[in-house]
């Protein structure tokens, strides 16, 4: 008589058990997965970090301290058997690389489970982590414009280890490349930056670039890299009659020898109210260029030609050099009238 009822009764009883259904059930345990990420910089995973959960209250665990280490993706697994079902309370201790101090997150509550394989999730935990926050500004010296699209390669030569130790970047629209190799160490990285500009400029290397890791959102110095040379020259044209600046003067520089420039001839039009002109053609290489300068002022002044003017390229960011004050005389007809 009882035979048909027994399975039904068992089913009812099983429904009351949290371990019923498919799968197996075991001793109560905590099993939590968390993720460590870098709080600053790339905000990528913080890998290889020691994590400890130290019980402070709640149900007892078979160990007082549960230890784990974050993997390449920053994930870590806290797993331990509990003496009974319920909630265990403790502190989470995260130890980033020295000299960074251990991060303590108190009051972490973990709930036990008897379902085999059940994995609960802790929040994503951003932690201080050594990172690089350096940038290089790559620009054309002759124009000051960003060298957009130019490739720059970083090659590690010394210091702390980074991954990867050689990497190539492209200058962005603002003229910057971000130097952000991954590291687990705190310290200084030394390397070379190889720049691959367009022809006629050849590739060149900025040696001994030193990058120091940061652990906060603090910005780092910007490495300045100029491509090519520049000819930053200026002249002031004044009236021979009264020494005042002459506006509207057109300057022409016609190269006679030395390094090639662009454009050739170079023309600047025209001087401002104080008579200032700029003589800054783009040099195609470093060195000296020689040429004749023609100053064509508006009437009533006469044109002046300066022979064999020498201009020397520079590869720094110095201010414009004054070529000189040049006086333009009044035309003879005007002089006669006076």
């Amino acid at each position: 008589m009882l035979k048909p009822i027994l399975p039904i009764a068992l089913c009812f009883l099983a429904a009351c058990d949290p371990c019923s259904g498919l799968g197996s059930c075991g001793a109560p345990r905590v099993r939590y997965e968390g993720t460590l990420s870098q709080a600053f910089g790339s905000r990528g995973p913080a890998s290889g970090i020691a994590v400890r959960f130290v019980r402070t209250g709640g149900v007892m665990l078979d160990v007082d301290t549960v230890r784990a280490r974050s993997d390449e993706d920053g994930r870590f697994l806290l797993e331990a058997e509990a003496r009974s079902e319920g909630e265990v309370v403790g502190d989470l201790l995260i130890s980033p690389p020295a000299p960074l101090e251990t991060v303590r997150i108190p009051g972490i509550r973990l709930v036990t489970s008897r379902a085999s394989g059940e994995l609960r999730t802790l929040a994503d935990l951003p932690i201080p982590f050594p990172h690089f926050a350096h940038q290089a500004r790559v620009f054309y010296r002759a124009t000051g414009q960003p060298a957009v699209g130019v490739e720059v390669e970083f090659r590690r030569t010394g210091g702390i280890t980074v991954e990867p130790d050689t990497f190539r970047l492209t200058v962005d629209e603002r003229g910057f490349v971000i130097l952000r190799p991954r590291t687990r160490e705190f310290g200084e990285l030394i390397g070379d930056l190889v720049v691959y500009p367009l022809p006629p400029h050849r590739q060149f290397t900025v040696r001994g670039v030193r990058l120091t890791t940061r652990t906060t959102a603090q910005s780092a110095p910007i490495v300045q890299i100029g491509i090519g040379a520049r000819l930053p020259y200026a002249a002031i044209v004044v009236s021979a009659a009264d020494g005042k600046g002459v506006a509207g003067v057109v300057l022409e520089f016609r190269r006679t020898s030395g390094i090639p420039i662009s454009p050739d001839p170079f023309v600047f039009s025209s001087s401002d109210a104080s008579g200032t002109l700029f003589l800054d053609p783009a040099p195609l290489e470093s060195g000296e260029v020689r040429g004749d300068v023609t100053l064509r002022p508006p009437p009533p002044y006469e044109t002046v030609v300066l022979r064999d003017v020498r201009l020397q390229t520079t590869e720094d960011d110095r201010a414009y050099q004054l070529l000189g004050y040049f006086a333009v005389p009044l035309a003879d007809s005007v002089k006669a009238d006076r």
Partner: protein
Amino acid sequence: MMGMSQSGRTASVCCGILATAFILYGCKPERIAAPMSELPDLRGDWAYSATEIRVKGGNLPEECRIDGMRLTFGDWESKGLFGRSSGGQMLCSGTLASLSGQLPAYPIRDGGSVAQHFSFSIGTSDWLHTGFITHDTVQTVVGGDTVRSLLFTDTLRGTFTLRSNGADFLGNYRAVRLTRGP
């Protein structure tokens, strides 16, 4: 109907099938051929050379040229055609002689195409190439029989502008296909 013979029933079934087939054929959407890509297949290696490279707006009679550069084009992507250059040297004469030198490897970017015309940049968008593609055909007749072998040589031709550190250059280029495919 009840008295319909076996052959009559078969004929009816056949008519039904035919009618259904005609109806279905009428409902069938018009056959749509696979869309033909308007983008030329440039995948592979190309031998690139540039000639008559002059300083724009200048009065310098001297020129430069680029020899021995190889371009490798990949597949068309949503943002255009990409690839990479390798090798090559710039050779200049006279006043520009000191500009001669080996060229590094550059990325190829921003490739675009409309019909036979296309553009791409070597290095940065400051070295912009425009031009067109041609397919040269060679016909060979062997002996008295009509044996023809057709050889297609793809060639890219056009002009480029190059702006580097404020200096502008103009030039002509030509790239001949060496290999096909990725």
